[in-house]
């Protein structure tokens, strides 16, 4: 299993790098292509563990869920911009900034980074600090309504937890194993 995951990591890194090489160079001479592929092979053999960490399972399902999450996130970005535009252009500037704290069930680096970036891009909130041990977030919200979206509805936390399969029960079972 360990070896298989390592091979998968090397292969994935190699494919990504080869695609990048071909797209960014745009030259299809045999010499250029072959030297590029050799470089990709060397780099992916040496440093594949930087891109693909071999710990987590069900990578395919997670990437699929991430792909489904992105359109929703893009729509949220559009809403966020209309929200900011409204607050900027309104003559009386309806803002009431406050800092909120909340804890999530997320523990892994990648999921925490995804949630932090999503919070920054969605209506009226920006991540200030993240504490990975407890999955705790400090968030600066521009108005009460946008703070409520994170504190009361918690749609985004649930969506990200669903994508990375780190909902309440699953995190608890993981901790029980350790």
């Amino acid at each position, binding site marked *: 299993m360990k070896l298989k995951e390592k091979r998968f990591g090397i292969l994935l890194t190699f494919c990504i790098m080869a695609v990048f090489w071909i797209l960014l160079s*745009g030259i299809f001479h045999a010499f250029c292509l072959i030297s590029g592929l050799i470089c990709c092979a060397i780099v992916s053999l040496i440093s594949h563990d930087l891109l693909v960490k071999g710990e987590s399972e069900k990578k395919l399902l997670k990437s699929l869920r991430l792909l489904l999450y992105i359109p929703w996130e893009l729509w949220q970005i*559009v809403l966020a*911009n209309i929200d900011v*535009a409204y607050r900027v252009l309104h003559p009386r500037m309806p803002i009431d900034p406050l800092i909120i704290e909340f804890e999530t069930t997320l523990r892994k680096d990648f999921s925490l980074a995804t949630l932090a*970036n999503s919070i*920054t891009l969605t209506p009226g909130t*920006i991540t200030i600090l993240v504490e990975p041990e407890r999955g705790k977030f400090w968030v*600066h919200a521009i108005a009460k309504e946008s703070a409520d979206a994170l504190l009361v509805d918690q749609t985004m936390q649930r969506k990200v937890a669903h994508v990375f399969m780190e909902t309440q029960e699953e995190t608890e079972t993981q901790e029980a194993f350790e």
Partner: protein
Amino acid sequence: MLIVHIAVTMLLGAGIFFTLVGSIGLLRFPDFYTRLHATGKCDTLGGGLIILGALIYHFFAYPETPLVPAKLAFLIFFIFIANPTATHALMKAAFKTGLKPWRLGEERR
């Protein structure tokens, strides 16, 4: 081609609008944190929309070089990752140095 022109113009217009709103917000909002709200969000979508317009225009006007739109698509992708991260880094730096956030009713800074 007319539809492409209309779509590209709308995308560029929307991009310019959001970038402009971001700049106005940078001037109007009362303190550091709220100003980052304006720039961090509007610059991401504004820049993204402008590049998307350029991408679509190039794709239909110069179909012989399909790699340029691909590179532009990469640019959009990286902007959407790098911009919130940079905003978050600025926020964190300000918070750690102890800059107090502006509350309603205070004077602007």
